[in-house]
Every structure is written in structure tokens, then in C-alpha cells.
């Protein structure tokens, strides 16, 4: 399905994401990687009290949906597959890959790249390349 190119709102939205990551670092001294934050809230890491601020961050993240609705009077637009089996498998793969690669789009793609971390630049290059190829194969062959 086609989606509209939204340069301005995407740029401003991205800047807000960056602002949030900077604030998170200055407050908690940690990198705001979403996959890391979530995986630390799940077993087995949940028993290690090394990351106490994951839950409030996640709460804020979830609260952004009703906040958006309150401000705009409309829900965020979403076109998503209705095949729950495929969605679950895809989600599992994303989670598995993020744990294996020590991070996801936020941790590696934003925070890591801006620290010029070799590991993050490699990870971002790898997941971008893999996903370009996946979409190419699924949509054009």
C-alpha cells in the first residue's frame, strides 16, 4: 500500500525522538534503546535490578497514544497485516534479532550511530540491508 512522503513531520518527529534519547541519557545515564529496555523488563534480566527506569519510560511511551488522541482527536494511522500468526512470528524474529545484535533501530540506529559506534553502524547496516532484500524478494519476485 502506498504511503505519503511526509518530510516535515518525519523530521520533527525524529528530532523529538532524539530529544527524548538525550533527556534519558542526562537523567538516567543510560542509552534509550527500546529493545534493551523491554528485554530488561522480562525474565531473566528482570531479576537484576540494573535498570530501574525502564518501566516509567515504557509507561510514557504507551501514554503517548492517548495523549496523541487527546491533542489531535484522531488515532495514529496504521496499516497492518491481519495475519496474526505471521505478525507473531515476525515480532519474535525482531525481538530475537535485537537481543542477538544487542539493540534495535533506536539503540543502534539512532543512539549508536550518533556516538559513531562501530558495532552500531555495522548492526544498522546489516538490518537495513537484510530488510531491503527481504522487501525486494517479497514484493518484486
Amino acid at each position: 500500500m502506498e504511503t505519503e512522503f511526509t518530510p516535515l513531520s518525519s523530521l520533527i518527529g525524529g528530532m523529538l525522538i532524539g530529544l527524548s534519547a538525550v533527556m534519558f541519557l542526562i537523567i538516567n545515564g543510560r542509552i534509550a534503546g527500546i529493545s534493551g529496555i523491554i528485554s530488561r523488563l522480562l525474565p531473566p534480566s528482570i531479576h537484576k535490578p540494573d535498570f530501574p527506569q525502564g518501566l516509567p519510560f515504557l509507561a510514557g511511551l504507551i501514554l503517548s497514544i492517548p495523549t496523541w488522541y487527546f491533542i489531535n482527536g484522531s488515532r495514529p494511522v496504521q496499516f497492518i497485516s491481519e495475519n496474526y500468526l505471521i505478525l507473531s512470528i515476525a515480532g519474535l524474529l525482531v525481538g530475537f534479532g535485537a537481543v542477538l545484535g544487542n539493540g534495535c533501530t533506536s539503540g543502534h540506529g539512532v543512539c549508536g550511530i550518533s556516538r559513531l559506534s562501530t558495532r552500531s553502524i555495522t548492526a544498522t547496516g546489516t538490518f537495513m540491508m537484510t530488510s531491503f532484500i527481504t522487501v525486494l524478494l517479497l514484493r518484486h519476485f
Partner: protein
Amino acid sequence: MRNLVTVFTGLIFGIGLIMSGMTNPAKVQNFLDLFGTWDPSLALVMGGAILITMPGFWLVQKRQTPFFEDSFLIPQKNKS
């Protein structure tokens, strides 16, 4: 106080994510579809974020400590 400010950072992250259109999987998929319905928005989201985090992180780390922790815990650079 710390929790409250952290909730606020999560809120800003989420608002940014929704505003950027990245809560719509179709937009992400279209970014990846270079030879089809290409939508370059995602590049601007990452670019916009890095525009802020690159100078922001550098400035923050000039401080000795974060506000509510004894030290920064940042993954070591260039570790494989």
C-alpha cells in the same frame, strides 16, 4: 521526581514516533521498497534524531554524572 521525568521522556519519544509516521508499519515497509512504492520518510526520522543526539550526547557526556545516577553506563565504543 526521577520517575516522573522518565515518563515524560517516554512520552516525547512516543509522540515523536507517532508524528514521524513510524508507528505505521506500512511506512517502514515502503521505505524498504526502493523499486516500488518508495517512501523516504524513515531516513528523515533517523536523520532528525541523529541531528539532535549527536551534539546532545556529546554535550551530556561533558558532565561528570547524570542527574540521578552515580555514573554514565554507555556501551563501550568500537567493541566488537
